[in-house]
């Protein structure tokens, strides 16, 4: 009787009401520039996210770290406010205003009570147009950055991410930490920071997304007032070169005396525009993206108890896409874990996935989407990332169809494209036993 009860639940699965929880509006705020907005007045809160296409990837040679240092200093005093005063006004008015960079983008996150929206924009404007860049603050932040960079030669996880980048992106600007190079950071001066902002914060590389208690008219008013001045025609735009590199199927080892080894692996990925993108997306979910129920977790954790965590993911930089994953396991199990990961990659290429596995994955990916929309912060992020991915505003209506159109044959095809064991490298940080044919780094 009880068993039947559960089966009944499976049967009614397909009767989900389609979710149309996201009503996205375009807000044309200046010339052809448009922001995306979800107006939701449930709470007196507004989240706005901005991205300029100006990340650490465009840092000039000899000054690696310029983008990040610029972003880190914007809330260290602006206009008539010292660093202390600026941060205190933000805190006393419960305004979160963060500046940070990735390899491709310069991000601004604004999260505030609606009643402080005016003040928030005034402070943002001051930070972007009149940052103080005082020498003692520059030096203080520089020494913080250098200490964190030192950590990437000592901390097991940080060593792993540094070596991973150096292998995957050798010869390309993406190989450097977003924070830059220690010796370069010392060379960056106030003028470099001012030039960075002047040249790269511009409306023609800007994306804006907002969610919360703000109307189309209000958003337009603010954006028009404060962003018009970033319309820059005459300065040169910087570009990041395309990264093209054949990955060698090597096993790299960074020997370190640790209780447990950290294993990372990577190969080529797939672009967002590729017709097989959604096939790859679902394939990865089934293989290693789906938490407790993925094939990697089932085989390596649930059946054999070799790891606490094993995962895979697809990642996109503007100029390079890759497939990657990782696991942590006791030193004596490293060879076993690598062997099983490889076997699973080969299995999914040879056998593909079953119709049931595909259906289950689609059910999850479609029906869990609503869970990403429960907060203004998350909605603003999704709106921003969707624009950065080059997608249209109709994406939110079409997403389910994209996912539903994938077949088991598509998955097999894309697995054979991406999961080529001759183009995947492994990197181990730790002290593994029984490993053969390793390249020490």
């Amino acid at each position, binding site marked *: 009787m009880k068993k039947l009860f*559960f089966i009944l639940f499976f049967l009614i699965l397909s009767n989900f009401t389609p979710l149309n929880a996201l009503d996205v509006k375009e807000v044309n705020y200046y010339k052809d520039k448009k922001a995306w907005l979800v107006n939701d007045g449930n709470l007196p809160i507004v989240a706005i996210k901005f991205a300029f296409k100006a990340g650490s990837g465009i840092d000039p040679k000899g000054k690696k770290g310029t983008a990040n240092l610029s972003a880190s200093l914007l809330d260290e005093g602006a206009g008539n406010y010292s660093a*202390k005063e600026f941060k205190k006004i933000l805190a006393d008015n419960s305004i979160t205003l963060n500046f940070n960079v990735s390899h491709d983008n310069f991000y601004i996150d604004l999260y505030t009570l609606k009643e402080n929206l005016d003040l928030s924009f005034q402070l943002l404007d001051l930070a972007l147009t009149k940052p103080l860049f005082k020498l003692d603050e520059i030096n203080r932040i520089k020494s913080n950055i250098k200490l964190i960079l030192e950590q990437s030669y000592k901390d097991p996880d940080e060593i792993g991410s540094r070596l991973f980048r150096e292998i995957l992106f050798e010869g390309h600007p993406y190989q450097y930490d977003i924070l830059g190079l220690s010796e370069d950071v010392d060379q960056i001066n106030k003028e470099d920071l001012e030039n960075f902002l002047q040249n790269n914060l511009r409306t023609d590389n800007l994306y804006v997304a907002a969610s919360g208690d703000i109307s189309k008219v209000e958003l337009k008013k603010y954006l028009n007032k404060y962003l018009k001045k970033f319309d820059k025609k005459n300065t040169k735009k910087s570009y990041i070169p395309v990264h093209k590199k054949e990955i060698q199927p090597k096993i790299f080892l960074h020997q370190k005396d640790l*209780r447990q080894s950290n294993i990372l692996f990577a190969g080529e990925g797939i672009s967002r525009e590729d017709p097989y993108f959604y096939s790859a997306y679902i394939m990865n979910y089934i293989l290693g993206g789906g938490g407790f129920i993925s094939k990697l977790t089932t085989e390596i954790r649930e059946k054999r108890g070799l790891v606490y965590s094993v995962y895979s993911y697809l990642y996109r930089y503007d100029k390079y896409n890759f497939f990657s994953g990782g696991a942590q396991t006791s030193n004596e199990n490293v060879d076993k874990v690598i062997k099983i990961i490889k076997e699973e990659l080969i299995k999914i290429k040879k056998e593909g996935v079953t119709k049931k596995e595909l259906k289950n994955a689609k059910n999850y990916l479609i029906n869990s989407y609503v*869970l990403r929309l429960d907060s203004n912060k998350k909605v603003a992020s999704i709106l921003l990332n969707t624009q950065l991915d080059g997608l249209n505003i109709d994406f939110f209506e079409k997403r389910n169809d994209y996912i539903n159109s994938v077949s088991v044959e598509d998955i097999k095809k894309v697995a054979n494209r991406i999961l080529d064991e001759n183009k995947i490298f492994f990197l181990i940080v730790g002290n593994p036993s029984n490993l053969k044919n390793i390249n020490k780094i």
Partner: protein
Amino acid sequence: MRFLFILILLFFIEAAEANFFKPQHHTLDNRLEIIVLENNRVPAVAHSIWYKVGSADEPNGKSGIAHFLEHLMFKGTDKLKPGEFSQIVSINGGKENAFTSKNYTGYFQLIHKSKLELVMSLEADRMKNIKLTEDEFKNEKKVVLEERYSRVDNNPSALLSEQINAALYMNHPYRKPIIGWEHEIKNLNLDDVLKFYKKYYAPNNAIIVICGDINLDEVVKLAKKYFGKIKPSKIEKRIWTNEPTQHAPRKVTLKSQDTAIPIFKRHYLVPTYTKSKKESLTLEVFSEIFGNPSTGILFEEFVKNKKLAISASAFYYPDGFGDTSFTISIIPKKNVSLEEIELHLNEYLDQIRKLVFNKEELEKVKKRLVNNTIFAQDSLYMGMRIFGSSLTTGYSLKEITAWPKDISKISTNDLQNFVPNIFNSNKSVTGYLLPIKK
């Protein structure tokens, strides 16, 4: 002037109340408690069940049971195969996980509201019916050990915290790490864990907290249907060994090859909310004034004025029973030693004991804290987490909803009274994390 001030305060209290969560509450006949926080933004719910049991309730020599059991709760019941719980949640578009702390063990699912009945039925099923084989148990023990190696043994600052904690509490079970000591995890057997499960997993030792697009009536109906038949167990009152009077400061130093960054830590033993309410609320306000990582006076002193550190912050965690810790963390600048940091901190804390607090500044800080409760409502998960963790660590529902009002009432006098008590060196542990230079 005083009159104006009172007016502002009154207005402020009303505003704070208007913006806070409005929990609805019901208790079933078997004493299972239900809390619903309605949030209609999306047609989804954060559904959770909180058992009032954690690592502090483990028998001596058996550390790690509570957390180990949390893992085993996904390993099948009379009706479900190992892993099937997670599969069902996933196929239905849900995300799920669980967490163990010193005082509670919580399980949650984020899912479309039409699936609330499904996850409630699954949660009711595993409250009493888990079924485990020796093989599953042995396998999961390896997983738990790997988790410990990842989170603690491979992470020098986590290792240091573990050592500090064991020194800070000399007698209270909070001295044990939540995940357990390695040698004790290795010695646990299936029977230990099942005994613990039978003893503590019962409707009268649990709270369901749901935040989302659902009302109390619907939830109570479902709870009656699935949990209503489960009989309450005899739950003994939790009595923990108390801390004795502490007579001497302690110091632990961890040297590690796996970090480049030295860290200074100072933990003081201070009361939890349940032990001393007014004092605890005062410490929450004080830790914001003193320890906020970008505006606190500790940051101002160490990073800006004396230029000794790259970061300086403090944190007070009010939850729990008995005593808790007030924690100071400082990362020195290059070429500044941890001894220099310690020396200056001791001098600086002498000043803090005598500090006269500014009324106007205090009002601003309290407003910040109260505003945080508005932002906390901007996600389903947060509300669920706040109510679940507070209700299982000694707060009543009334005390949680009164929090903004109670914080608003903290005065400069309260600060003057309670702050000097924090920094009692006899009740402290100093921790050094030192990189080994090669």
